[in-house]
């Protein structure tokens, strides 16, 4: 059999239809597909290599929830025992009363809007995503809480890891320089509150715009040091 060959480098920009590798020694991971002997890209993004797996980190796209993700959602609707949240995804998420409140709630006496009301912003964890894309959230996490005040930005979900940086280096830098509390949801929703929100917002939007260009960290730290 023919020898397998890799045609791309780590972090190289590829576009849909581009051949990434030939031969059966490589395996397509997220964002790729196999046609006969070739692995091709199905998204525009940067190549990610891990052992035999070839994946693509997309430059754009929507958030698809998966269990364990921390997300920021906006309460859209409320029924007797659930809240419906918009989590910046094609699928709405459901937060059941039992997952949201630790105590016994007598539904005949209480209106659940005392806990969360329509228009509230919540940081919650994705508990489960069913095959039919029913998303269930839980507040049973130490970070989960209602977010009061502050402002909200939305970035491309695939760029969240860049915003956070290696072991949180990037986000810590922004938090430190702008003296803001920042919470980043895996769904690309960023909440910030603090002294210099404008500066933090500027840095975050720069990352969103330029995350695929080399030398990001230097540019961001320069921007933050320069101030407003």
């Amino acid at each position, binding site marked *: 059999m023919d020898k397998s060959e890799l045609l791309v480098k780590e972090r190289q*920009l590829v*576009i849909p239809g581009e051949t990434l590798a030939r031969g059966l020694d490589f395996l397509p991971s997220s964002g790729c597909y196999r046609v006969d002997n070739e692995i091709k890209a199905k998204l525009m993004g940067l190549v990610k290599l891990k052992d035999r797996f070839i994946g693509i980190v997309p430059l*754009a796209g929507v958030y698809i929830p998966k269990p364990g993700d921390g997300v920021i959602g906006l309460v859209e609707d409320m029924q007797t025992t659930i809240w419906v949240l918009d989590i910046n995804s094609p699928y709405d998420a459901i937060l059941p009363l039992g997952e949201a409140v630790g105590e016994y709630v007598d539904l005949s006496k209480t209106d659940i809007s005392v806990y969360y009301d329509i228009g509230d912003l919540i940081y919650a964890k994705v508990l489960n995503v069913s095959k*039919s894309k029913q998303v269930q959230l839980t507040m049973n996490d130490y970070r989960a809480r209602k977010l009061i005040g502050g402002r909200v930005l939305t970035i491309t979900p695939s760029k969240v890891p860049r915003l956070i940086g290696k072991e949180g280096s990037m986000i810590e830098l922004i938090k430190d320089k702008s003296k803001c509390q920042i919470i980043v949801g895996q769904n690309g929703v960023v909440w910030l509150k603090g002294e210099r929100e404008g500066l933090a917002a500027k840095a975050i939007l720069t990352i969103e715009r330029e995350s695929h*260009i080399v030398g990001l960290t230097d540019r961001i730290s320069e921007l933050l040091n320069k101030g407003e």
Partner: protein
Amino acid sequence: MAKAGKPEKMIINGKRLDGRELEEFRPISIEVGILKRAGGSAVFRFGDTYALSAVYGPRPMHPKHLQNPQKTVLRCRYSMAPFSTQERVRPGVNRRSVEISKVLNEALSNVLFFEDYPKTGIDVFVEILQAEASTRCAGLNAASLALAEAGIPMRDFISSCSVGKVDGKIVLDVGGLEDQYGEVDMAVATIGNEDKIVLLQLDGIVTKEEFLKMLELAKKGCAQIYEKQKEVLKEKYKTGELDVESQ
């Protein structure tokens, strides 16, 4: 501007009315990511034909009864701006735009991975801002770039161009008066530069030999468009990685 009448000859000394060779495109220009609110957007121009495309989604599919629990639903809308031609186009849906929307939808359906986002819908809008023949081809080229920019999983780009017969000669990229007075106009779209045709519409009468010749030329044209599409996207999202290496 007065409407130009039929010219006596449309090919003079082997050159066409606008000075092009027989197998030459009008100037092509492409821009990607021009609409901020859309997931992806692109403008594709063949000379004076401007097609703007915007892609939204995948987003929740409404109305709900059109949802497919296993697949994404693709919706295409082609429309011409009222000011796109010399005679005003009545805005809104008409017989022609319904047909073109349908063929664009069917062409694009060949390259998308519908199973990746069940229960959602993708909306593709193609607006013709200025029409000077080959609008569906320009629209399709713009739409496939916009889809790629929106991060929608797809097999490959769709590249499209038109071929025609003018004064008995086979020409690439029918434009302007050639469309009005030419004998044949054929729109072809292929998946990338592969030998797979996803759109073929023909107007006029041709012999089998002519048809095969036209098809061959169209495939060559599509391959050229494909190269241009790739180039534009790569240029737009340059990573700067190569510069670092050369230093």
